[in-house]
């Protein structure tokens, strides 16, 4: 049974850990986007600088009266120019550009009703205003992220299924080379329960050791992934960490695998013994 079972369990625990991290990180990412973007609207008011500023001011004043609106602000022209600078890299050109007035609106509740109510209030003052509630692109990103999350969940489920099956088959396969040991123990008068328990404990210990080994390799790997994620520094990715419940779940995998290996070992040895007189 030896190191084979331990090695297999170590690899599977490591893969399960990576899959759990993927699930946790993508969930955090989706949550992050949902909370930070979904409650906001961006409003563009196009026209000559003199009219856009006055319309923008009137719209902001109207919006601030609405109960659905938590916050409504005009984005300063300097800020818009600053945002454009990395793309155009020409201060004179940017200064001459006919920029629209931009409003950043945060809603208390994002719903179709509140968006239509707010839209109506804006259109009443500035009929040509363009309102972007981010739903189109956000829905696509959210769908993509949700898809990734399902893939990660499927990966984790597969890893867990593989863990269960592999532990069971590896334990059985390992024992086939020990049939002669079972036979000799049987011939020298060892009782069935004693022989089965010897192999069962052995499988339990080796699987637990494999689990510990897998966690020992996974922890620095997680730290490495987290460090790489931090280096990206674009504020889009949430920090890569494994929440405590996930650690507990991962920690419980090794004992669960050990119990499976132990039971399979006991049943396999009992079956071998049942073929002997």
């Amino acid at each position: 049974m030896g190191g084979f079972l331990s090695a297999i369990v170590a690899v599977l625990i490591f893969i399960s850990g990576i899959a759990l991290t993927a699930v946790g990180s993508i969930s955090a990412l989706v949550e992050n986007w949902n909370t930070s973007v979904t409650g906001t609207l961006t409003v563009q008011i196009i026209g000559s600088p003199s009219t856009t500023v006055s319309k923008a001011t009137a719209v902001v004043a109207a919006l601030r009266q609405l109960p659905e609106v938590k916050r409504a602000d005009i984005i300063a022209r300097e800020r818009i120019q600053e945002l454009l600078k990395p793309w155009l890299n020409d201060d004179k050109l940017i200064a001459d550009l006919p920029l629209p007035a931009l409003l950043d609106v945060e809603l208390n509740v994002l719903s179709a009703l509140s968006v239509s109510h707010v839209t109506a209030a804006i259109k009443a003052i500035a009929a040509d205003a363009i309102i972007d509630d981010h739903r189109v692109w956000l829905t696509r990103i959210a769908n993509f992220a949700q898809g990734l999350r399902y893939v990660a969940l499927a990966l984790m489920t597969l890893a867990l299924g593989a863990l269960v099956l592999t532990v069971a088959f590896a334990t059985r396969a390992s024992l086939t080379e020990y049939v002669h040991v079972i036979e000799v123990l049987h011939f020298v008068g060892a009782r069935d329960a004693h022989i089965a328990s010897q192999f069962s404990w052995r499988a339990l210990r080796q699987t637990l050791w494999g689990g510990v080994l897998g966690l020992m390799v996974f922890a620095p790997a997680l730290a490495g992934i987290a460090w790489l994620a931090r280096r990206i520094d674009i504020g889009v990715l949430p920090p890569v960490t494994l929440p405590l419940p996930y650690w507990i779940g991962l920690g419980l995998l090794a004992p669960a695998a050990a119990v499976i290996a132990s039971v399979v070992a006991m049943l396999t040895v009992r079956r071998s013994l049942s073929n002997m007189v």
Partner: protein
Amino acid sequence: MALFRSKTKENDSDPVQLEGVALRYGNSPDIFSDLSLTLPVRSLHFLTGPSGAGKTSLLSLLYLANLPSGGRLRLFGQDVAQASRAKRSTIRRQLGAVFQDFRLLDHLSVFDNVALPLRVIGAPKETIKNNVTELLQWVGLEGLFDALPQILSGGQKQRVAIARAVVTRPKLIIADEPTGNVDDAIAERLMQLFVELHKLGACVIVATHNERLVERFAFPRLHLERGTLSVLPAISQPSTRAV
């Protein structure tokens, strides 16, 4: 030698009783049928017969690798076919078997292979150490205590197998060609071990093709040929009672 110091308490039941015993494997014809025999305590018999006569099959019944397909086999008064698995384990603890293929555990040292039956019955560590050490010295394997079976010659493996079979001072010793891989001097020494154990009360059966051994040691023979078991007297002057 500690192994030979105290006598075994003799059991009232004969160690081996065969009544019309038959054996066949699956649907194949009987290897033998209707064998009847009683072997008492403190007896030593050679089991002889041509190759293929069924000697190893008969021994396999005695060390409980098989059950009879007909008749009744009693070991220490217990009908083995009726005995529970736990009871059969208890019977196995009272017998020692030397297999033709030795059946040593390759991952255990010579010492641990020989100690195995003592560990199974939960013997104290001191007893294990003393008995195994003395027995391995007796069979001429001093200096190989820590060796693994893979590095041993056929003769050395055979001696380890014999030491393992007798280390618990079993009441019934079944040896299948126990001297097949050793020279005459070692063969004689090993036979002497069986003789000593039989004098202490064990029932010993030695299957062999070694005619010199059968002539050298004056013990009766169980001759198996064409499915018939005959009890023949010792070739030289008889020194033990026949069955």
